[in-house]
């Protein structure tokens, strides 16, 4: 990536620094884009409103940036009974988990921070790190609502980690690799009944896996219909209730950054990622991020569409859905995929 951008040989340390900076910039940027396009604009129009129109001149594009600036000016409050160090660390842990997912997502044959050969495994593992941050936030806030929210979040995220992983196993079985880059290349090189024009996006065979992944991702993101940890009408804002200013902004960035990351994962695993059939080399490096972005927005649209339409489950109903429906279906999906893989 850096070779591509600069065209000259640079040291290992500088490369690492540049990569880190790019990812660090990507997280808030992706949160901004999703927040603006979906939370402010799409939600407003779905509710037959317009959303912010004035800030920045054109359809209120500056609104979220302005909100960010405002959050930074707010007083940083820590409750008297809170555990100050844990309280301060929790938002960082949440954003950290988002940050770590971005590391493995490929946006072109060479545009990737790190091509791990266990990329899928790594991405799903670090995504669940945010549970620790949420638990820390809820416990350290010394607030009953926050505690209830954090415990709900922990129960929910652990329950939905399983279907999330199991939904992806089918893809891994079919592609025969756990590297995200490898999965993308598998989809690019495949063909559809002899027609190579589209490649072979794995959603065609793994649509059950895709549906499960979307449902489980929705739960991992604590978005409606699975938003009991924040449940603004009962727990006011759950684990975030005591956070103000910059730290609240961190949670916001974490929420939407993770949504972006999960959409990117779904696009990579099921929709073919950056790949355009027949496009290789430097062209693919340049076109790849755009293709990936379009796919991410498509997946994110589905996520947020459901988010703005459905009411919320109850905690026990959510567990029942995970254990009684999603996990058995996912296991069945793996079984069928495995049998077909061996048979053909």
């Amino acid at each position, binding site marked *: 990536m850096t070779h591509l951008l600069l065209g000259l040989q640079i040291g290992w340390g500088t490369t690492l620094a540049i990569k880190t900076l790019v990812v660090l910039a990507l997280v808030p940027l992706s949160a901004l884009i999703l927040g603006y396009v979906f939370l402010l604009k799409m*939600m407003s129009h779905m*509710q037959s409103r317009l959303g912010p129109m004035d800030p920045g001149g054109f359809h209120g594009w500056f609104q979220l940036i302005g909100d960010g600036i405002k959050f930074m000016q707010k007083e940083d409050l820590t409750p008297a009974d809170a555990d100050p160090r844990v309280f301060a660390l929790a938002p960082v842990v949440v954003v950290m988990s988002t940050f770590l997912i971005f590391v493995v997502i490929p946006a072109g044959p060479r545009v990737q921070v790190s091509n791990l050969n266990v990329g899928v495994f790594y991405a799903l593992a670090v995504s669940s790190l945010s549970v620790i941050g949420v638990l820390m936030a809820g416990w350290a806030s010394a607030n009953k609502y926050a505690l209830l929210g954090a415990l709900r979040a922990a129960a929910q995220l652990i329950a939905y980690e399983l279907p999330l992983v199991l939904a992806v196993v089918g893809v891994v079985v079919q592609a025969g690799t756990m590297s995200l880059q490898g999965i993308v290349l598998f989809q690019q090189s495949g063909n559809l009944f002899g027609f190579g024009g589209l490649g072979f996006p794995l959603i065609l065979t793994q649509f059950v896996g895709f549906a499960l992944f979307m449902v489980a991702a929705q739960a991992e993101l604590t978005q*409606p*219909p699975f938003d*009991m940890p924040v449940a603004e009408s*009962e*727990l006011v804002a759950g684990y975030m209730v005591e956070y103000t200013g910059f730290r609240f902004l961190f949670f916001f960035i974490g929420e939407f950054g993770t949504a972006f990351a999960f959409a990117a994962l779904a696009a990579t695993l099921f929709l073919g990622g950056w790949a355009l059939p027949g496009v290789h080399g430097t062209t693919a490096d340049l076109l790849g991020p755009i293709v990936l972005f379009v796919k991410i927005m498509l997946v994110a649209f589905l996520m947020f569409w459901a988010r703005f339409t459905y*009411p*919320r489950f109850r*905690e026990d109903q959510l567990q029942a859905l995970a254990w009684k429906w999603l996990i058995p279906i996912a296991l069945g999906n793996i079984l069928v995929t495995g049998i077909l893989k061996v048979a053909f």
Partner: protein
Amino acid sequence: MTTTDLPPPGDLPEVQIDPAIYRHLADAQVNVELDTGDMILSLGPQHPATHGTLRLVVRLDGERVIAADPIIGYMHRGYEKLTEYRTYPQITTLINRIDWLSSFANEVPFVHAAEQLMGIEAPPRAVYIRTVLTELSRIATFLLFLGEMGLQVGAITPAFYGFRDREYVLNLIEAVTGGRFHPNFNRIGGLKDDFPWGFTAECRQVMRRVFESCDTFEDLVLGNPIFEQRTRSIGIIPPDLGAAYGVSGSNLRASGVDWDLRRDAKPYLAYNELDWKVWTHPDGDSFARYWVRLQETRESARMVLQLLDGMPSGPIMAKVPRIIKVPAGEVWVNTENPLGEMGYYVISKGATGPFRVKIRSASFSNVSILPWLLKGVYVPDIVTILAGLYFILGDIDR
């Protein structure tokens, strides 16, 4: 009102609790380290689920409610006392503010009480216009409920639809009375003014929109399986217990009690001249309450259309002296308001203002069943039950 003071439910059915919870609790009891103490959670007075300033002190075991105490009075404005120091025309503007979502319906029973004491009867056109406006305020209240209930169980979008569609109805009320929320339009012996030109056509158009809106809510909220899961068999009010607590209106009809003051009370307004139906649902849970209110919204829109067709012409004001002095006497008038039974007991001693007024507001009695209703449910169900009972804080505290 504390939970412990309440009489035991007796031979009435207990709240149905999943036996699995008991098993789970028993396990926790055996394992001493796992035995957690109760947590007392104070919901409100500032909490989004309480529609204002109701406070619920809830004793929780995990997420299960052991006991709940509603604490009211944070918004007490002393209207009963205030009426003793105001004249009759001034009181209608005060009682607008009791249940602020259906203010017009609040005025009707009070004005009826004064009219009965004075022996005046409003002319037929005034009666019809009163009925139209009462039903419009019922539609406005219920449209808000239909959206609000969606919001309380977690869907944001229905609330906006509710507010959007209610606005059309409020515009109608404003076009007639001049006030969106506090019309102060009833006068003793009639009304302040007649319909403005073109109102009938506009009202018909809005009623069509109300039907459309009801269909939207039926698909978006009522038909949603998640909503159904969240509300079915949550907060069941047995019909006899509900009646014993004084629960009234749609809440009681959702428990299968076929009782509507518009039909069953001494005939008032123009209801006995209309062709309409009282909707009931046998289940008595939150889902039934939503269903009943949805049907009643449609029924009200149908009633408005009938009233517009049969609108008599003529004066809107009976002959009333300029300074209103109500002859001595006592009268009790109760009507079916959107939230339930609303009544005024007016004692007059012949002055320009009443001697004493007792206001029976629907929400106060509806909320009194909460300690019984909330026993054994989960925290998310508290919100569902509160939203399903649909109370207005002004109507509780007065």
